[in-house]
């Protein structure tokens, strides 16, 4: 019951005129960002975070969360209409969404995607409302060893589940953490890692510099290279009648939707997994449990419904560890976490005690964002299709300018703009060689929290690493983390054994 009271209070905050307007605005921008090929929620949140200094921190987070949500809806639009995923989270949506569009059923695909997103989003927000308070309560008892163990777990998921080249993933984590160590040593106060004696390094490397460098400049360089070809846009005819028919036609997909929602939510909680693998897994499961697996890939509505329900559910799932434990479940939530730290709303269990109003306002606005994203999506599908025709050579330079101005705004130091350009270019060159970059962004956000946790733990234990295994919660978390770290080795052994058998 207490949850319902808190939630009611949250709705009162979410429906304050400014917050409600920001939810609607955030959803609309998110839909746009999600629909543009090459831009996803993480790019939108990274590039627009500096712009939100205009409104109070609580409202800024609500806006960014709505944007995150909207982007999950929007990704489907270009997957279906262009056959190019608008964001990596919508890759699985192209498998059946594009064939449907080519058969002249683009409207069916778009409506299914929107409704599935809504169902996935709503179920996951309900799960979030139920899980968050008890999890935060447990986390209140955590000390530095537990916090550090959680961070190890977050990074271990990238090794065990990320599926990328392991030494490159590890390298990415280490370099991200190392960048977070630049500036003044938090404990002794001494200047540290002042490269080439440049004064700009005294204030450290702001996580936004890396995030905008990689997800803004690097991503655009990547898209400029990849999107050299011409794109063709499918036609969609929309009318109220067809919308109603489309929604009624989804009755047979209810089971798939529910499956996608739950699967997506739990996969989304894992830091390395998130919405992209969640949606791919949901697609796979939908195909396996379907009565007619042969029709997948040729325009089966269930093939659109499953990944779309899953990616929205995963985006809420990723918020759960971010808000309750302070460990982001995805690159987008990592950037949100960094933003909240700047604004003095440090995520973690204490947030639920000290800023309870804000937490419940945010949760309530997720419910609202879900509804508005659905309405805006369906009402303005023609507008989004029109926007997709916007030539990339107009959008790209504007985004570059946004990155540069946005990279300057937080610290107002040209040093950071140069650093951002270097990160963008080097990140792009590394990405071409399969270096995963998301772990570095997560690491630079978590670094300032991980280092003191590690040092304090070692101080308590007088230098012994056994402390991470002796305390019950820390021990369990560390064992899971180690399990994830050796998972790829185990897989290799199994594969080797099978081959020789």
């Amino acid at each position, binding site marked *: 019951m207490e949850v319902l009271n808190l939630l009611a209070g949250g709705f009162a905050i979410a429906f304050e005129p400014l917050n409600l307007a920001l939810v609607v605005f955030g959803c609309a921008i998110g839909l746009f960002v999600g629909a543009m090929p090459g831009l996803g929620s993480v790019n939108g949140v990274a590039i627009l975070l500096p712009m939100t200094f205009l409104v109070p921190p609580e409202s800024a987070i609500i806006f960014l969360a709505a944007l995150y949500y909207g982007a999950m809806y929007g990704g489907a639009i270009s997957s279906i209409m262009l056959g190019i995923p608008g964001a990596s989270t919508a890759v699985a949506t192209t498998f059946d969404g594009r064939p449907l569009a080519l058969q002249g059923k683009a409207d069916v695909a778009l409506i299914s995607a929107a409704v599935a997103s809504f169902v996935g989003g709503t179920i996951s927000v309900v799960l979030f409302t139920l899980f968050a308070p008890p999890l935060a309560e447990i986390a209140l008892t955590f000390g530095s060893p537990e916090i550090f163990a959680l961070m190890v777990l977050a990074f271990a998921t990238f090794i065990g589940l990320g599926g990328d080249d392991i030494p490159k993933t590890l390298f990415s984590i280490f370099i991200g953490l*190392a960048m977070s160590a630049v500036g003044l040593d938090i*404990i*002794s106060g001494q200047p*540290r890692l002042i490269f080439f004696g440049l004064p700009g390094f005294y204030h450290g490397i702001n996580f936004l510099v890396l995030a905008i460098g990689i997800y803004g400049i690097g991503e655009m360089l990547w898209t400029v290279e990849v999107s050299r070809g011409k794109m063709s846009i499918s036609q969609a005819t929309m009318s109220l009648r067809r919308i109603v028919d489309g929604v009624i036609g989804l009755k047979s997909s209810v089971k798939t939707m529910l499956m996608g929602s739950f699967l997506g939510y739990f996969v989304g909680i894992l830091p390395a997994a998130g919405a992209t693998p969640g949606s791919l897994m949901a697609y796979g499961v939908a195909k396996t449990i379907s009565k007619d697996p042969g029709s997948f890939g040729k325009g089966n509505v269930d093939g659109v419904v499953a990944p779309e329900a899953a990616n929205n559910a995963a985006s809420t799932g990723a918020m759960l560890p971010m808000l309750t434990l302070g460990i982001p479940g995805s690159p987008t939530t990592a950037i949100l976490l960094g933003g909240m730290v700047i604004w003095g709303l440090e995520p973690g269990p204490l947030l639920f005690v000290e800023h309870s109003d804000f937490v419940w306002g945010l949760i309530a606005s997720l419910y609202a964002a879900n509804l508005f994203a659905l309405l805006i999506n369906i009402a303005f599908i023609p507008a989004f299709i029109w926007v997709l025709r916007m030539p990339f*050579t*107009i959008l790209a330079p504007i985004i570059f300018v946004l990155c540069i*101005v946005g990279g300057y705004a937080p610290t107002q130091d040209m040093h950071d703009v140069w650093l951002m350009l270097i990160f963008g270019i080097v990140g792009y060159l590394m990405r071409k060689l399969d270096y995963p970059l998301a772990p570095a962004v997560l690491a630079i956000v978590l670094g300032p929290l991980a280092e003191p946790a590690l040092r304090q733990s070692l101080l308590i234990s007088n230098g012994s690493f056994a402390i991470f295994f002796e305390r019950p919660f820390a021990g369990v978390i560390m064992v899971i983390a180690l399990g994830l770290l050796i998972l790829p080795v185990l897989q290799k052994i199994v594969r080797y054994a099978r081959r020789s058998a």
Partner: protein
Amino acid sequence: MRRAEFVMAVVMALVSLYLMWKSAELPVGWIPDEGPGGGAFPFWLGAGMLVCTLWIFLRWFRRTSEVSRSSEAYFDGRALTLFLIVGGSLTVMIGSIHLVGVYGAVPLFLAFYMRFLGRHGWPTTGAVALSTPIVAFFFFEIALNITLPKGLTEPLFYPLYDIFL
């Protein structure tokens, strides 16, 4: 790809060594009653990075990783030209912010990009190149109170400050 993979591993190994050396400016060992020294955390991270680059090198040598087997070019001719033009114009834009400020560099960059890379007509190019800095001015300087760098163009803004601030 294969050569690029090797060069990147070597460059990153050098970065790791530099990081370790730089971290060692602060104590990296154990300080009684204080815990690990200020340099310890980045020092061991640098060491970890170095191990990773050796590992990447080993996988390159044994051709286990995908890119080290790929015979595809790291950059084909067109991609390289495009990268140099886009990357170069970005660098020039940021450099010229020091000189002519954001409100000088941004319209020039937009005009260059849209006209020469996008082949858009002058009306579209002009409209975007001129409206973007105006929107930026009202958003950053007026609404957010963030002064963007203006370089030599600073005096031109005095009348605007008088009106809006």
